[in-house]
């Protein structure tokens, strides 16, 4: 389960940076870019809290 959460979190980060790069390269329009970045934000916010702080506490 934790691995799935990490994958979704990672996908969230990818969606936060790749759409702007695609916009820069002229492969994506502005509105879909904003939409995908919003999706990425939700993916990160919903999944990252379940593993980030836990792994840092375990590492103590």
């Amino acid at each position, binding site marked *: 389960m934790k691995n799935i959460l990490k994958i979704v979190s990672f996908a969230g980060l990818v969606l936060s940076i790749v759409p702007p790069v695609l916009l820069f390269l002229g492969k994506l329009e502005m509105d879909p870019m*904003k939409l995908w*970045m919003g999706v*990425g*934000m939700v993916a990160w916010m919903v999944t990252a*809290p379940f593993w980030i702080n836990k792994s*840092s*506490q375990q590492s103590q």
Partner: protein
Amino acid sequence: MSNRFFKKIVGGTNEFERTPVPEQSLKGSRSFLGMYAGEHTAGTEFVIGPLFVAHGVSAGDLVFGLLIGNLLAVLSWALITAPIATAKRMTLYYQLERIAGKNVVRWYNLVNALMFCFLAGSMIAVSATAVGIPFDLEMPTLADWFPRTAGWVVTVLLLGAVVTLVAIQGYSQVSKFANVMSPWMILIFFSAAIVGLSQLGVGSAESLVTVAREVIWNGVPLPGMSRFSVWHVIFFAWFCNMAMHIGMSDLTILRYAKSWTSGFAVFAGVYLGHFVAWIASGVLYAVFLQANSGSQEFAPGPIAYQTLGIAGAVCVVIAGWTTANPTIYRAGLALQGIFPKVATWKITAVVGGITSLAACFPALVMKLLDFVALYGLLLMPMGAVIFADFYFSEKMGFRSEGALSSKSDFSLPAFLSWVLTLVFCLGLNLFYGVEIFFLGLPGWFVAVAIFVILSKVKYPIAKSLAA
């Protein structure tokens, strides 16, 4: 960032408040890399980058100034703060108490708490600019000192109440949340720069240079703003965290470092936050100015929303909130040092109230560069006192940790170093027109000199001991 590590540092349950950090609690440089990267990519970055644009910094001055200024900041942390932190392994407050005495530390705490309140207030105002977007709130402009509308006041007060309520619950949950959001926020800053440059028509390295020079940082200040030179950029980048490095606040953090070389870990923070993020937020503002020609509006929320959509607006809210919250908490801790018998939640509530009222005034955002410089300047002399006590007490023939060694609660040399240095800086400003950004450097030397001279008089080493 290691959450428990950070909680230990800023939390009230500090285990080593009056003892040196023991060997088994020391941390390697990696712990500091993450922590500094998160701490210096914050809500303030959404304001500082655009203010450089508004002050008409040229592109070359900005890049050169940030490279040099940030390098000087890293060196200040690594060569001035970290060696003392790892030699003494004490908090700033305890170290200061031993040198200056409890009564001087009380005044220091009061000034510190007030500065924290104003800083947190500016961050609540930044968040409010994003929260107000769906309500079509009229945003403040660069020239505003006072709130423009009742809607702004209501939004800020409501937001301040929420932030204060969360702060009353303690530091832990927000620390965890900030921990989670940090990697995402750093990426949003990178995205902001990429999208902004695309909107400004950058398609090649050549056009990047042209747009940077002629559109973003064209060297022309906005109406009513003074023009910043490369020296402003260098000194601001160097001294925007003056309270933390030469002011020695980060003794409290770096005392956990295994080696003084961990002080270099701060480069992750300053070059991500104070280089990439300032440039990125400057690009965002340039896009806003292009789209809204002649606009005097200065609101990070709408600026980020226009370019990045909902992700940009949410990033502004979170960046402002996660900066305001620990700052309110730290202000509460500083005040608790003065009123130790008052319950923590009551102090935090008072601090939150002051912060929320301060946040109503947009001047805190519009004058953030000046405020940050003032904040560092006010606290810096006490850092110089700690430096002088550590390095010069033996060489110059006075007793180290004067208050402790004389069993006093008040050290006149430390107090006068603080006050006279600030008087000296005020004099430079009033009579010679030296801007606030440049006062820290001469002020530091003056503070060291006053402390050494007065300590030699007040706490001389007895001749038999000196021999």
